[in-house]
C-alpha cells in the first residue's frame, strides 16, 4: 500500500516519483503558456523560430508587444484600480470582523459567523448575477418612479468592485481573525495599567501585532481580485479588467503570442507578490 511507515519506508521511491510526476503536471501548462512569449513567430505554436522579446516591447504591427498594446494596457490599469480598491475595502472590513468575532459576545454569534463564511461557498457566477439583478432592479425602480438615472448601479467599475469585495472579504476576515486569536490579551491589559488610552493601545500594541496578517490578507485580496473572472463577467461595463480583455481576444480574435507575454507578466507579478506574502506570514510564527 502507499502509506508505509514515517521516514524512509520502502514506499519512498515510488512516492518520490509520484510527487515528481505531479509537479511536472502542475508546471506543464504554465511553462507552455510562458514559452511562446519568447518565440519569434506570429502564432503561439511550434516550430520554434528563435528567441525574441518583441511580444513585450515591439511597437508596431503585426508583432505588437504588450507594452504598446493600448487595450491590454487599459485592461491592466482597470484591473489594478479594481484590485487596489477591493484590497483596501476588504482588509478594512475584515479587520472589523476579526475584532467583532474575537473580542465580542452577542446573541446568535455562531449564526453570524456562518453568514460570514458563506460567500466563500457561493459560486462566483451566482454572486455576479444576484448583484447584477438587485442593482438593476433598484436602478429601474428609481428611474421609473423618480425619473433619475443612476449610472453607477449599471454594470461598470463600481459593481465589479462590489462583486469581488462580496466574497474576498470572507478571505481577509479569516486570515486576520486567525492572527487576532493568537494575541495575548495581557499585553493590552498591561498597557491599560500603564495609563494608555483605548485608542492609543489599539494603535501602538494591537494593530502592529495584526499588521503582517493585514498586509498578507491585502496581497491575497489583490491577487484574487486580479485573476477573478466568474463574478466580474456579469458585472463588467465598458471598462473591462485584464482577464476579460484577454478572454475576449482569445475567443473572438484567436490567440497570438502577445497573450503569452501577458501571461508571463502576470505569472511573474503574482509569483513575486505571493512570495512577499509568504515571507511576511512566516515572520509571524517567530
Amino acid at each position, binding site marked *: 500500500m502507499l502509506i508505509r511507515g514515517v521516514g524512509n519506508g520502502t514506499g519512498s521511491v515510488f512516492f518520490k516519483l509520484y510527487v515528481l510526476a505531479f509537479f511536472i503536471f502542475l*508546471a*506543464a501548462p504554465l511553462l507552455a503558456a510562458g514559452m511562446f512569449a519568447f518565440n519569434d513567430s506570429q502564432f503561439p505554436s511550434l516550430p520554434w523560430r528563435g528567441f525574441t522579446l518583441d511580444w513585450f516591447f515591439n511597437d508596431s504591427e503585426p508583432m505588437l508587444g504588450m507594452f504598446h498594446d493600448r487595450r491590454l494596457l487599459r485592461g491592466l490599469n482597470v484591473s489594478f484600480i479594481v484590485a487596489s480598491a477591493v484590497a483596501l475595502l476588504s482588509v478594512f*472590513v475584515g479587520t472589523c470582523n476579526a475584532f467583532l468575532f474575537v473580542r*465580542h459576545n452577542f446573541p446568535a454569534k455562531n449564526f453570524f459567523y456562518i453568514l460570514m463564511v458563506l460567500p466563500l461557498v457561493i459560486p462566483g457566477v451566482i454572486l455576479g*448575477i444576484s448583484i447584477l439583478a*438587485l442593482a438593476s432592479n433598484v436602478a429601474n425602480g428609481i428611474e421609473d418612479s423618480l425619473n433619475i438615472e443612476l449610472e453607477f448601479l449599471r454594470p461598470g467599475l463600481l459593481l465589479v468592485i462590489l462583486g469581488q469585495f462580496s466574497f474576498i472579504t470572507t478571505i481577509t476576515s479569516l486570515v486576520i481573525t486567525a492572527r487576532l486569536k493568537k494575541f495575548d490579551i495581557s499585553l493590552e491589559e498591561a498597557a491599560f495599567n500603564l495609563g494608555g488610552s*483605548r485608542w492609543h493601545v489599539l494603535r501602538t500594541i494591537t494593530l502592529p501585532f495584526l499588521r503582517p496578517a493585514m498586509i498578507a490578507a491585502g496581497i491575497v485580496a489583490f491577487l484574487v481580485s486580479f*485573476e477573478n473572472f466568474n463574478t466580474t463577467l456579469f458585472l463588467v461595463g465598458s471598462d473591462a479588467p485584464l482577464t476579460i480583455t484577454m478572454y475576449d481576444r482569445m475567443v473572438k480574435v484567436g490567440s497570438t503570442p502577445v497573450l503569452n507575454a501577458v501571461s508571463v507578466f*502576470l505569472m511573474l507579478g503574482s*509569483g513575486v507578490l505571493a512570495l512577499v506574502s509568504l515571507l511576511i506570514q512566516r515572520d509571524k510564527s517567530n
Partner: protein
Amino acid sequence: MTSDIRKLSLLLLFLPFSLWILLLIILPHIGMVYLSLQEKVAPRVYEFGFANYIDFFMEPIYWNTLIRTGLMSLLVTFLALLIGFPVAYYIAKLAGNRTKGTLFMLCLIPLWVSDLIRAFGWILLLRESGIVSSALVGAGLIDTPIEFLYTDATVIMGLVYTVILFMIVPLVSTLDGMDNAMIEAGYNLGGNGFTVLRRIIIPYAMPGIVSGCIVVFMMTAGSYLTPILMGGKNSSWFTEQIYDQFISRYNWESGAAFGFLLLAFTSIVVWVGLKLSGQTLTSTVAKS
C-alpha cells in the same frame, strides 16, 4: 461607563459586517429569487409565477446539463482527493523539513495564476497543432496530429488541474498537525499500511478532506472558463446556460431561476456531504 463603550464598539464593528452581508449577499439573493419568479406575459409586463422553473423542468436539455454538471463535479472532486491525498501526505509527513517548505510553496504559487492562463496553457499543449501532438508526431508515435481538446476527459483533467491545489493545501495543514507517534503506534499494534491509513490517518484528516471537497466541488460546479475553453461548444456546463440566458438571450428572469437552481443544487450536495461526514461548515471551511 466601560460597558457603554463596549456596546458602542460592538455596534460600530457590527455596522460594516451587517452592511456587507445584507447589501451584497442577502438582498441580492432575495432579488435573484424575486426576479426568477417573474413571468413575462407581454413585452415589459410581468406577473408573479413559476413559469421559469416549469420551463426548466419541461426542457430536458436544461436539467440534463445541471445533472451532468453535478455528476462531473463529483467525479472531479473524487479524482482531486485521490490524486492530491498522496501528494499532501508526502509534503506533510515524508518530506524533510526544507523540501517540505519548498514543495508547499510550489503548491501555493500556481494558485495565484489565473484560471484563464492555466486553461490557455493546456490549449497550447493539447490542441491539434499543440506541443503534445507535435511531439508525438516528431517521435514517430503517430502519423497525423491528434486533437486532444473538446472531449469530456480533457475537461475533467483540466478541472482537476484547476482545483487540486485547493484540495492539497487544507490537507497539508491538517496532516501537518498530526503526531507521527500515532502512525507508529498503529504499526506497533500490528496494523498494516492499509489499516493505519483507514483507521488512523483518514479519520484524523477528515476536517481537511471535507473542507477540501466542499471548496473543490463548489468551485468546479461554478466554474466557467475551463469547461468553455477546453470543452468547446459541447461542454454543456450549467454556468454556460446561465451566461447564455443572461447575456446572449437577455432573458434575466430565466437566468435568475437557473442561478437559484444551481445554488440550491450545490448547497444540497454540500449539506448532504457535511451530514454524512459528521462535520460542520465552521469546523472545516472556516478553519483553512
